[in-house]
């Protein structure tokens, strides 16, 4: 007798106050011939691909009798439910319902807006239609200048907002990352309704003993461009871009977020070459993420009622973020955005 208790279905809790936006459902490589179940923002979804086409992100359960569609197969460019062989095309319409004389009218699976970019399947969460574009990261486009790159992926219990606001949190750099220099945060003029851009600069950062003979940091700068759901970062050293980063998120449910993305290090001739910069950057990225994750692990999701002047960066980000979380629709947001920006 196989009477091993079946694990009960988990009660997914929707992440609280998650902003509407583009989130990573899964990696492109993770969706091959078989459909794949994923959880994004507490929603049970299935990602599948018809032939060589773009991945489709659909609700996980068949609208007929609720079977899980990841057990299904792809037949003639449509996803076929395992239970009664109903088929749904890439638009979610039911295109076959065997043993029923005609396809029941108005039956469709919910398809979420999605795009495949930079090795990820991005899904728009929060409203029916995307309200801003998915990331534009030219450094990974075909024809981009020569570079070395790596992708990263980390799991944390922190919320999506916590991860996105971190770059705007000036006073955490000296404490968590040990940057013993004056940091300056300047807002960039290229902010719009869905983008908050800023520049964080450090002048003359003293390096520890062996390193200071080979290089010097006269001017270090971090350019941040953040939407409510993903961000791009560029590090500049002494006026030259050293690394471009795309930071994306998979908020599975309350208290469960995966951060993932790409770092691109442009190839450069010179004394040090690309390898040293690449591995140096990668090491500091790894160390920096590790320090942040240690804080994220036990952080309480509060708005922080006690603030100082140093917190201006985080507070402005939160104000920006709030416009995209909650229940306001597109027009509502647009109206409020015009009023405040």
């Amino acid at each position, binding site marked *: 007798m196989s*009477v091993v208790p079946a694990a*009960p279905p988990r009660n997914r809790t929707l992440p609280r106050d998650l902003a509407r936006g583009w989130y990573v459902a899964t990696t492109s490589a993770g969706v091959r011939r078989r459909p794949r179940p994923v959880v994004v923002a507490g929603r049970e979804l299935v990602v599948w691909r018809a032939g060589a086409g773009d991945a489709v992100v659909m609700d996980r359960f068949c609208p007929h*009798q609720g079977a899980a569609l990841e057990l299904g197969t792809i037949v003639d460019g449509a996803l076929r439910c395992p*239970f*009664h062989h109903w088929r749904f095309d890439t638009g979610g319409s039911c295109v076959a319902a065997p043993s029923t004389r005609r396809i029941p009218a108005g*039956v469709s699976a919910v398809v979420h807006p999605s795009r495949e970019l930079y090795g990820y399947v991005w899904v728009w969460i929060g409203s029916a239609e995307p309200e801003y574009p998915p990331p534009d990261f030219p450094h990974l486009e075909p024809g981009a200048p020569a570079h070395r790159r790596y992708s990263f992926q980390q799991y944390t219990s922190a919320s999506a907002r916590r991860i996105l606001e971190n770059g705007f949190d000036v006073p955490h750099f000296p404490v968590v990352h040990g940057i013993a220099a004056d940091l300056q945060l300047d807002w960039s003029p290229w902010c719009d309704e869905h983008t908050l851009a800023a520049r964080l600069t450090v002048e003359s950062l003293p390096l520890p003993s062996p390193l200071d003979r080979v290089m010097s940091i006269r001017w270090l700068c971090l350019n941040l461009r953040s939407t409510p759901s993903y961000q791009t970062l560029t590090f500049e050293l002494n006026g030259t871009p050293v690394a471009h980063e795309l930071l994306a998120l998979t908020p599975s449910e309350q208290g469960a977020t995966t951060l993932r993305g790409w770092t691109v290090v442009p190839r450069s001739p010179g004394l040090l070459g690309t390898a040293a910069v690449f591995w140096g950057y990668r090491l500091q990225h790894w160390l920096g993420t590790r320090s942040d994750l240690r804080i994220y692990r036990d952080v309480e999701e509060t708005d922080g009622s006690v603030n100082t002047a140093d917190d201006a960066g985080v507070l402005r980000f939160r104000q920006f973020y709030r416009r995209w979380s909650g229940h306001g629709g597109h027009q509502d947001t647009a109206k409020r955005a015009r009023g405040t920006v």
Partner: protein
Amino acid sequence: MTRAMTMAEPAPVRPVTNLAAGWYAATASTNLRRTPERITLFGETFVGWRDRHGRARVQSAVCPHMGAALHGGRVVDGTIECPFHRWRFDPDGRCVVVPGRRPSARVALRVLPTRECSGYVWAWFGSGEPTHEPPDVPALDRRTRRPRLRRFRLADATRATPRRILENTYDPDHLIALHGLTVAGDARITFPDAPHGDRDGAPPERFDAMLTWPAYRGGLGTVSDVLGLNAGEFTLRVRGWASCQQIEYFADRRRLYEMVLAVTPVCEHHSIQHIAAAVDPDGRGVMGRLRALVHRAEVQVAARQDLPIFDTLQPGDRHGIYVPGDEALRNFRRFYQRWVDTAHRD
């Protein structure tokens, strides 16, 4: 590390919701011996044991004195003895021994109405007394002598609700889609007796149905032809209660096997699907044995094909979209729901 820290986190046991009144399989007859057995049913813990006459008993496992678990105790003189203070309870749940004192007449255990037939110990769920008997198939009784080849029992844990397990029988379309039945035409479902209620509003005892499909086709048809297993028409005759089913399988009116489908509702999101089947003699010698094996494999494979679907179904037993092929399913759900209401009636 202390002992407490090494213990596994207990699985959440929640009471089963939306359960129809009726007979449920507490355990297989062969699993219940003289020693008390722990039985988790409907999200509660019960103790199963056999009295002096070998009759199966299913009672609350919690001693009303200090709450000790009675399945940790033993059976003494036709009573069950609590391991903590040695209070004893008789087969009807009455407390008959309190060491050094006279037992109070008010102390009693909750006893579930119990029957034993078709190879299972059945327990009744519902507030009232049983209104009918569980399916009794003598061929499945453990006392009936029968070659092992021609009798078998399956028990599979699943996340599906009892309703989902039972309603599957009334879903002819999934036979062809999920079970890959390649047949020469549609599967049909008919109702020998249209469900009707009693005059006083009580639900009908059973919702019987007959599933019919034409001859096998394709590769399966060839194999079946060679083995002499193909027929013009196959029929499943279902005697369906709200909590269990008795099913007979015919090929051209010749019965091939008979089975009982029972459910153990362990707790919410955890059921055990029980199938007990007795294969009828179909030829002698090697051919007869081969056919018995094929029938056996047929039931086993079909039962296991349903399980992955059951385990990943959308939680909450939501009603989906109904198409004409789902009419029987819908009627069964209505019938089932009436028995759910019966379970909670005083």
